[in-house]
């Protein structure tokens, strides 16, 4: 078929933090780069990040060490994180922060003019001793400040943007990935963007759950695209439930509120984290805090008429701290919970927040697949940010490591693409059937008539994930959920949209997104069922212990249902490996 084609050195799919950091690196190097984003870039979900970004600057405490940050990140990951990648991220963190500061990010400051740093979960000094202040922030609007700063720098660097264009599918060839089919949401025009390098920066997929802190746009588009291109997803069973989503609304209340001294209480007013985790208490890792809250609720110590939430107490911090350090969460709490935290505690509940798994990559953000038991680089394809699994978060991410991840590996992707293009990375030319394969999903939605609605299937999918793949999991629930998902997948094939117009057809976008949600949910279900242990955020009643003998490995899911495994990298380059041990 005749499809308009445009060529670029690099096409970046996604205009959040990872995509914009990659595009900045590439635009400044003079390469011909295009960013396609289904929303105007500053509407990407990075904008909702609140608490901050970790780097061992030692500004508040006087000293810190990236090796301690690395240790905390490995411990937080429950040893599933790759130590070479964690080493790279933590070592590069200080420079990354200084770069952002030089770009104009309005960080909060200390009296001496340096960047203010607050306490956050799981961050310690001297390999697990007392809490450290390592989290740089712009009050509690750090993601907003970062995303706007990166977009502003991209304006200065004259990067090219395809705003409100939707990536339909990757175009795969024999050799690798040749680019992406993109749909102009405003006009319905479909083009093939051919690129020497395609960078996936599509973010997360929290919308597979009924209750999530994630934006409506977090639909796992990169995961669907990767699976349909025959590529694997890694560690998809590891979903983080944030301890403090506003009950009912799902809106996030930053961990920074506990970093500033807030704490959780049950219906008896008891500060229960002291009981579960005497050392780090409310600033334990998120998986630990989320499970503790769920146990409180299940054992009848939850708050409210149904006993289905706990309370986050902040009023003791005083007006000055709350207004200076946590103004955004005060606003959110008043709007979405009807509670002013200056006076009353906020009703909160563990809420789906972040996916540790994703598209496997190496530390240069090159996408990997497995062939004959060996890692194999997919030519022309990169991934960075939440959609990637590099893996720096392993089985559980530390708070304020995700903003770090996106800038460190967005930058790494940009650097490696530059080098590859200099060394002669060319274009790959797809056959007509390669293009047709990438158009199939879109054509199905254009063709289907009189089927079930997108909303019907999406609502059921979200309910299955919420009920059967939540904070605590069992084989019984998961196999039930799995059967329901398989039925939903069948029904999805004949679902349809009524709106067939070309002009800004958001129904069609939601339909394409639903294909990606379904792919993500199935990947989660397959791998969650498979992993018969509890590690990090994957907690099973029927297998309550971590099982390093059998499960110290990354799990991989291919779209056809095939499952494979990769070893965890425990060989950092500069420091000694961090040896296996129990967590608090």
């Amino acid at each position, binding site marked *: 078929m005749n499809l308009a084609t445009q060529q670029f050195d690099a096409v970046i799919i996604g205009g959040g933090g990872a995509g914009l950091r990659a595009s900045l690196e590439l635009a400044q190097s003079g390469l011909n780069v295009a960013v396609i984003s289904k929303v105007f870039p*500053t509407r990407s979900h990075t904008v*909702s990040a609140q608490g901050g970004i970790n780097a061992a600057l030692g500004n508040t405490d006087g000293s810190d060490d990236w090796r301690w940050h690395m240790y905390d990140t490995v411990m937080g990951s429950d040893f599933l994180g790759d130590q070479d990648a964690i080493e790279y991220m933590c070592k590069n963190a200080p420079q990354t922060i200084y770069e952002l500061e030089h770009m104009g990010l309005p960080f909060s400051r200390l009296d*001496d003019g340096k960047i203010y740093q607050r306490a956050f979960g799981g961050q310690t000094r001297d390999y697990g001793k007392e809490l450290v202040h390592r989290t740089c922030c712009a009050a509690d609007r750090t993601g907003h400040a970062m995303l706007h700063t990166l977009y502003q720098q991209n304006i200065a660097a004259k990067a090219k943007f395809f705003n409100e264009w939707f990536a339909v599918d990757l175009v795969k060839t024999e050799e690798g990935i040749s680019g992406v089919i993109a749909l102009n949401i405003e006009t319905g025009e479909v083009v093939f963007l051919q690129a020497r390098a395609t960078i996936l920066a599509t973010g997360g997929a929290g919308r597979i759950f009924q209750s999530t802190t994630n*934006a409506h746009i977090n639909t796992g588009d990169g995961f669907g695209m990767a699976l349909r291109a025959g590529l694997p997803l890694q560690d998809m069973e590891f979903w983080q439930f944030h301890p403090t989503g506003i009950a009912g609304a799902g809106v996030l209340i930053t961990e920074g509120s506990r970093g500033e001294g807030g704490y959780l209480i049950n219906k008896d007013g008891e500060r229960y984290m002291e009981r579960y985790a005497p050392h780090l208490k409310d600033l334990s890792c998120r998986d630990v805090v989320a499970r503790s809250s769920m146990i409180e609720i299940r054992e009848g110590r939850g708050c409210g008429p149904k006993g289905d939430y706990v309370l986050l107490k902040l009023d003791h911090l005083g007006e000055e701290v709350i207004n200076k350090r946590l103004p955004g969460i005060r606003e959110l709490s008043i709007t979405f919970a009807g509670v002013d935290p200056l006076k009353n505690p906020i009703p909160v509940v563990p809420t789906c927040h972040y996916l540790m798994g994703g598209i496997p990559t190496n530390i240069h953000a090159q996408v990997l697949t497995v062939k004959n038991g060996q890692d194999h680089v997919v030519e022309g394809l990169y991934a960075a940010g939440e959609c990637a699994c590099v893996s720096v978060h392993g089985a559980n991410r530390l708070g304020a490591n995700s903003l770090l991840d996106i800038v460190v590996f967005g930058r790494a992707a940009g650097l490696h693409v530059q080098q590859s293009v200099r060394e002669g990375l060319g274009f790959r030319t797809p056959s007509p059937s390669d293009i047709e394969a990438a158009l199939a999903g879109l054509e199905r939605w254009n063709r289907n008539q009189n089927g079930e609605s997108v909303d019907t299937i999406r609502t059921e999918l979200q309910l299955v994930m919420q009920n059967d793949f939540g904070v605590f999991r069992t084989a019984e629930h998961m196999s039930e959920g799995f059967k329901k998902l398989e039925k939903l997948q069948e029904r999805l094939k004949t679902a349809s949209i009524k709106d067939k117009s070309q002009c800004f057809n958001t129904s069609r976008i939601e339909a394409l997104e639903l294909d990606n949600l379904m792919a993500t949910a199935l990947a989660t279900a397959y791998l969650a069922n498979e992993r018969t242990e509890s590690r990090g955020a994957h907690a099973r009643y029927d297998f309550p212990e971590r099982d390093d003998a059998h499960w110290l490995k990354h799990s991989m899911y291919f779209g056809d249902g095939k499952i494979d495994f990769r070893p965890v990298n425990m060989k950092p380059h500069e420091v000694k490996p961090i040896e296996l041990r129990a967590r608090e």
Partner: protein
Amino acid sequence: MHFSIYRYNPETDKKPYMQEYDLDTEANNCHMVLDALLAIKNTLDDTLTLRRSCREGVCGSDGMNINGKNGLACTTHLSTLSGPIVIRPLPGLPVVRDLVVDMSQFYKQYEKVKPYLQNSDPLPAKERLQSPEERAKLDGLYECILCACCTSSCPSFWWNPEKFVGPAGLLQAYRFVADSRDTATTERLADLTDPFSLFRCRGIMNCVDVCPKGLNPTKAINQLKELMLEEAV
């Protein structure tokens, strides 16, 4: 609840019209205007078209005109509105479809103020220092979410959308002027001295009235004017 919503699809409609919907907001668990609009789209009419993303008032996607006043659908409580609820696209910008407006002119005006830090000094090895007092000057400026509620409520922008930067763009112009780390103040002020870019602001203050983040573009505009006077003296 009864909703009256502006509809226009250029492919099928000769002209815009208002469409009426009745929605059981309690049964659909709707608290905010956005909840109601999505419930209408999901259960009554999938052709209803709007932008939305974060649903918590920080991405700026769902600015629209609600009962005559610009605001974000996701942070406007239904309980604060008296019915019937009339929803229109943001005024003063071309309509693409239904509640989706063409924001290119708005973004152009934003880009015009060079909304990025400029500093000609050599880069330090670590962060540039900035005192808490200097940093506090950015509060009330950097939080803008580019929702266009302010600019599209401004009569000066309606009259001169190509020439008047508008409140959102001017707020960002001042955000960089106010930043102790930016060294381009003189150039930034010089770029705004023509009769239109800034001086078309008549102090009507619709921008302040509608800003969903509680920001004050009029104050920023006045501060730019004062600095211009100081530079001229």
